[in-house]
Structures are given as C-alpha cells and as structure tokens.
C-alpha cells in the first residue's frame, strides 16, 4: 500500500502534521494572550467580571483571570484589536485585502495588499538585480586579480557585520538630498547591500570550482582566457550561483522591508506594518507579515524551479 504513494506525498505528511500542531498551539495561545483585552471589553459592555478595573487586573496572572472568568475567554477569539489574532482572523484579513479586492476589480487600490506587495516586489527585484550584478562582478574580479582578492574580500566580510539598518535612514537622507525623489532607490540600495554578499561568496567558490587539470586541458586546447571563462568557469559555477541566488533573493526581500520600516514610507509591505503599528490595527500588521512570507516563498520556489530547469538542461543530476 505505502509503495503506491509517491515520495513527495509521503514527505508532506510530517510537514503538514507539524503545521497542524503549530496552528493548534497558536489557537490555544490566543486565550491567555487576549484575556486582558477581552475582560476590558466585556467590562465596558456592562458584564460582571471578577476583579473589576483593568488596573487591578494588571497584577493578576492571566491563568487566574481565565479560571475566574471562563465565560469571557471566547471573547478573546473575536476582538477587533487583539494582542494575538487567531489564524482565522489573519486569514480573513489577508483574503479581504487580496482576493476579495481583486474580485471587485480593486487589486491596485491603495488598501489592497496586492498593490503593496507589488511595490515591495519591485524594489526587491531592483535590489536583487543590482546586488547580484555587483556580487558576480566582484567575484570575477576576486578570482582573476590577486590584489582585488586581498583588498576586497576582508571588506566584503566586514560590510556584512555592519547592521545595515543603522545606515538605512542615512541612505534615504542622502538620496533625497542628491535629488532622487523616488522612494524605490534607497530601498533597492539597502536590499542590494544585503543581497550581494551571498552571491559574491557563492560565485567566488563556484568560479574556483574547476580543478587544475580541467584548466590545464583548456590550455592545451589553446583556449583564450575569455573562452576558458565562458566554457569552463561559468558553467561550473552555475550550481553555486543558483544556491546563492536563493539566499540572495530572501535577503533582498528582508532588505526592502527593512528599508520600508524606519523611513516613513507610505506604500509597500513594510509600510503597511509601520502604519498598522501607528494606527493600532494589529490585523493589518499580521496580514502584511503573512503576505511577505508568501512573497518570500514564491520568489525562492521560483528560483528553485529555475535551478532544476537549468540543471536538467546542462545534464546535471539534481
């Protein structure tokens, strides 16, 4: 019987069960997280709750409050501004701001998460393109020039130990002073900064992957430097490239969202999180977070698919 089930289905079973358990833990955690807010709301609605006044309740543990007010617990699962929303609430909010708006033809409205995800995606892709090109060019320079290797490589490592968020507000000030009005540019620079490093390291490894005998063989063919680069080093580096591209695109998305958070941006998923924080609408924050997660998943799986396709075309085993 079990042999008839394909391997990828069997590998899904543990993942799905773990996901179910995580969802269950989330549901259970909603009760203690929201009990105080629920009690405040119930008290305002005129219900009798056991210790009266939210100031008095602050010193009592949530478990005690739940024991004393079992009737109010369910209220915690249906709050407008919960401390921890239920998965269903997040799902509803996500659907309301994506699918439902898209069906009404308002996918590009400023209140739709599709619009904000698109803004974030644009900056991410620009940053990814910029970071990847920088990484590849840097790797070629490092592989072919010893002086670049010795001077650049230590600084590339140091650059990643500098928390870019500290620089983010400065990059935005600088680019606006230099007359760049578009908010996309500083975001793209930040995401390129986070994304170039994995590509650089992966490509240096990849371009150095061919061993001496292979390089020597090309020399016996009287191949020029360019030929041995295009026909040997570049193809040999492709598996490394794709692996680091997957890390890089995730880093680029992190960079864009970090770039949107502290800067008073008005559109983009990071800005939705910021606005949700300022207006006290936790559901908007959670929906934007999940949208970002979906976006990250899509981008990484897209590159994964590309990697498989390229590997098959090149006759490599995956």
């Amino acid at each position, binding site marked *: 019987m079990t042999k008839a089930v394909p391997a990828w289905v069997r*590998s899904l079973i*543990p*993942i*799905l*069960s*773990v*996901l179910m358990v*995580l969802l269950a833990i989330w549901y259970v955690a909603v009760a203690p997280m929201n009990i105080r807010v629920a009690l405040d709301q119930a008290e305002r609605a005129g219900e009798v709750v056991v210790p009266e006044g939210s100031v008095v309740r602050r010193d009592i543990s949530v478990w005690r409050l739940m024991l004393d007010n079992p009737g109010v617990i369910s209220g915690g699962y249906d709050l407008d501004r919960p*401390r921890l929303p239920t998965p269903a609430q997040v799902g509803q909010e996500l659907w309301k701001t994506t699918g439902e708006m898209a069906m009404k033809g308002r996918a590009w409205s400023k209140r739709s998460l599709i619009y904000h995800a698109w803004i974030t995606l644009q900056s991410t892709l620009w940053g990814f393109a910029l970071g990847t090109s920088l990484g590849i060019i840097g790797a070629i320079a490092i592989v072919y020039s*010893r*002086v670049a*290797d*010795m*001077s*650049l*490589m*230590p*600084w590339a*490592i*140091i650059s*990643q*130990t*500098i*928390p*870019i*968020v*500290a*620089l983010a*507000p*400065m990059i935005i*000030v*600088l680019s606006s*002073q230099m007359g760049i009005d578009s908010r996309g540019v500083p975001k793209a620079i930040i995401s390129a900064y986070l994304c170039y490093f994995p590509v650089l390291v992966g490509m240096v490894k990849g371009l150095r992957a061919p061993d001496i005998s292979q390089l020597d063989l090309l020399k016996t063919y009287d191949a020029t430097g360019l030929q041995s680069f295009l026909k040997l080093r570049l193809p040999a580096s492709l598996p490394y490239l794709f692996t680091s591209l997957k*890390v890089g695109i*995730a880093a680029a*998305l*992190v960079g864009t*969202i*970090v770039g949107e*958070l*502290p800067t008073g941006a008005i559109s983009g*998923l*990071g800005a939705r*999180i*910021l606005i*949700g*924080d300022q207006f006290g609408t*936790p559901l908007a*924050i*959670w929906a*934007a*977070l999940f949208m*970002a*997660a979906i976006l*990250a*998943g899509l981008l*990484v799986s897209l590159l994964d698919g590309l990697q498989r396709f390229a590997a098959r075309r090149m006759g490599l085993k995956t």
Partner: protein
Amino acid sequence: MSAVGFAIMFWLGAWALNTWLANSRWRGTRTVRIFVPALFGIALLVVWEDSVRGFDVSPVILPAPSVVAQTFVASLDILWIDFVQTVIKGAISGFAIGVTAGILCAIAIDRSGFLTQGLLPIGNFFAALPIVGVAPIMVNWFGFDWHSKAAVVVVMVFFPILVNTVAGLRAADALQRDLMRTYAAGYLQTLFKLRLPAAMPFIFNGLKIVTTLALIGAIVAEYFGSPTRGMGFRISTGVGSLSIDLVWAEIAVAALAGTAFYGLVALLEKRVTFWHPSQRQ
C-alpha cells in the same frame, strides 16, 4: 579642487602599492595580508574626506570622517549608554536566549525522525522570512524597554540556529556512531562526546549568520518605540534633528560592535573546531 586631485592620486598610489605587494614574494606573510585591506580602507576614507572637502559638501548631508571622529570622541558617554542599551541588553541577551533555545529544540526534535522531517522544511522557510517585521508586535507585547528588543532578536536568531544544529547533529556518520555503540555509550554520552562536537562547525556557521541579524533586530525594534536611549533611537532622532555627525558616530559604533561580535564568534570557532579541515593551516 586640489583636495580631490590629492584623493585621486592617493587612491592610485595605494592601489599601485597594493598591486605590487599582492604580487610580491611577501604576499603570503601575515603583515601583508593585513596591510593590503587596511590600506584599501584608508584609501576609501581619504577619498571620502577629500571629496567632502573638495566639493564643499554640507555637513548636514555627509560629514567628513574627521568630523565624525571628533563627534565620536566628544560624545563617548552618549554612545556608551546607547551601546549598553542596544547591544548588551537587547542584542546579546536575545542572542543568548535564542541560540540556547534553538540548540535545545534541535536536540529535542532530532530524537524523532518524524519531527525532523516535518520541522526542517518549515524551519528553513522561516529562516528565509523577513522576520524583522514582527518588531512592532513584540514592542506591543513586551513594552518599550530592552525586553521587546531581545524578543525580536530571539525570534530572528532561533530558526537559523535550529536548522543548522539539526543538520549538524546528522553530521556524525554511521561508522562513528557504531563505534560509540561498541563502547556501550548511552544516548547522552554519544551526544556530548561525538554528535555535538561533530555538529559544532554547522552551529558556528549558524552563529556567524546570526550575529548581524541580532544587531539588525535590536536596532529595528527601537524604531518602533524605545526609552530615550539606544542606537536605533539616536539614529532616528538624529536624522530628524540634522545632527548627522552623531548618526555617523552611531553607525561607526554599530559597525565596530558588529565586527567585534563576529570576530569573537570566529575566534571561538577557531578554538572549538580546531580539528575541522577548514580551520587547519
């Protein structure tokens, strides 16, 4: 404009010297290996300094490195308070909690093959997510002080460590485990004498990734509310009040802290995993 001319000359001279050194017969020595990148960094600073002077850039936009250095020295007390608040209280405590939790969780789920198969892809997925976004939620849950910053850091640090430790615990091969069994070693003995040491290169790989994440998390969380100290607070208010030199001094502190933190982990790695091929000379 002569300052810019000097900057270009200095840059070319430094590059020529580096090229000569990198191809000289001393290129393998320790001194040259440190001197070459150091000269590259100094050349960058000189170009920055002289371009700011030469083009008369307003200090509100980009202060010269010398001005930043003066501000750095003059406001050491503020910088120290911010350093303690953000790095020591926020980042390091969150880092310690997150790393401990990640390693313990990995050891726990490693006992069950089912859990490992289920959690590893999920952990990998979470490790790729922009988790910094939870910062406002954590500030809402744990208040403005450093606890919320540490909480953000814990969440950011947890998944990369979990994934790397689980991978590391599988690194000891069947032959080695069989050997332990012939010694009649129990689970704990095998864990402490074989599998954890064998996992150390992987764990340190995770630790190195996570050092920067810890600082990023601690600083971003401060943009969402903090007491009136901390590096993120100083940077966001500094940009608003145009005290850009202080902001750059904070950036310098962040850079130094990040590099020192990473260096410390790398040093520890060298001590702990001295047996690994990548550490041998």
